[in-house]
């Protein structure tokens, strides 16, 4: 009995913003497909092993998944060092992230196993990035934001790299949105999550928000003390139900 499906994982090179060659990790289930696609946008700690694991998790659940290295341009001996450099530079620009992610979306759509649908997901800064992407372009079919901070931004937080608060882009959100948040988080705070939800309602957007008690920022990260097992298990179930509905 074949209960667990095999998968193929490989490093690939995609075309990032401005045609820049960019490393990405791709995982697809065994078989010819067609499979729905998911682009994973890594978190502020960088293109780390956790995201590679998440990518395989999607393949295990029937998705053709790809995670690209948004910190490819930063000097560093490891994803960790690159993340520290990017952090010191105030992060990457939203415009560059959109260009890089568009390359990952296009790469997925061009694969012969693609079913033509692509979702985007990220956590932490990647959650914000996923939301910015889906609010800037209209080539994804579903978006999942996991505890993305700085969706609501003060005027002082705006700069050349992040010129528009994502909440102000709500009218342009081009696909259904899933939001997963910990009520003990301070960025995004429960108040900011509520404000975002009000904006989604005002613009009649399709969304699902799930708020978890007893959980803070990054509660899916099994290798961190912030891990919360019950909330994480439920959160993953919500993610697969959401993508199952919108990417089939």
């Amino acid at each position: 009995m074949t209960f667990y499906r095999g998968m193929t994982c490989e490093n690939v090179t995609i075309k990032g913003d401005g045609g820049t060659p960019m490393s990405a990790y791709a995982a697809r289930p065994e078989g010819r497909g067609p499979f729905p696609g998911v682009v994973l946008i890594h978190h502020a700690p960088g293109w780390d092993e956790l995201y590679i694991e998440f990518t395989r998790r999607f393949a295990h659940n029937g998705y053709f998944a790809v995670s690209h290295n948004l910190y490819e341009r930063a000097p560093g001996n490891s994803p960790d060092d690159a993340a520290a450099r990017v952090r010191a530079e105030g992060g990457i620009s939203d415009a560059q992230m959109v260009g890089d992610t568009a390359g990952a979306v296009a790469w997925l759509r061009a694969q012969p196993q693609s079913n033509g649908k692509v979702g985007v997901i990220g956590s932490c800064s990647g959650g914000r990035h996923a939301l910015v992407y889906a609010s800037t372009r209209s080539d994804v079919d579903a978006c999942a934001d996991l505890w993305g901070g700085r969706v609501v931004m003060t005027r002082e937080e705006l700069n050349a790299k992040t010129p528009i608060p994502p909440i102000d882009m709500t009218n342009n959100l081009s696909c259904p949105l899933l939001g997963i948040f910990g009520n003990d988080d301070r960025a995004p705070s429960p108040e900011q999550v509520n404000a975002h939800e009000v904006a989604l309602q005002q613009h009649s957007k399709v969304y699902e928000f799930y708020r978890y008690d007893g959980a803070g920022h990054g509660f899916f990260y099994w290798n961190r003390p912030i891990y919360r097992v019950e909330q994480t298990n439920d959160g993953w179930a919500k993610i697969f139900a959401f993508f199952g509905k919108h990417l089939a």
Partner: protein
Amino acid sequence: MCTSIVEIIRAEGMAQRGDDWFTLAQAVVTYDHARHAPLEDVITLDFVDAGSARAGVELTLESARALRAALDRAIAAAEFEEAEVRGKGAVKKAA
């Protein structure tokens, strides 16, 4: 917590990573969720060169405060030495 709390200073000196020493260009101080330490939010110190070398530290807020106090004490003592007044009747001020 996803913060944008970052402080950067130009740093002169050297740092060690493994067996190699590298020349510092910057020291970066942040407050955000820990990447490695089994802690939630931490003060992070990154000492970096102009290229790709880095020595990083993650500290609890309490440890960071103690480090700041230790730096203040050591700097006060160093300034006393630098002023070349030791042994000339000068009284060292408390940090």
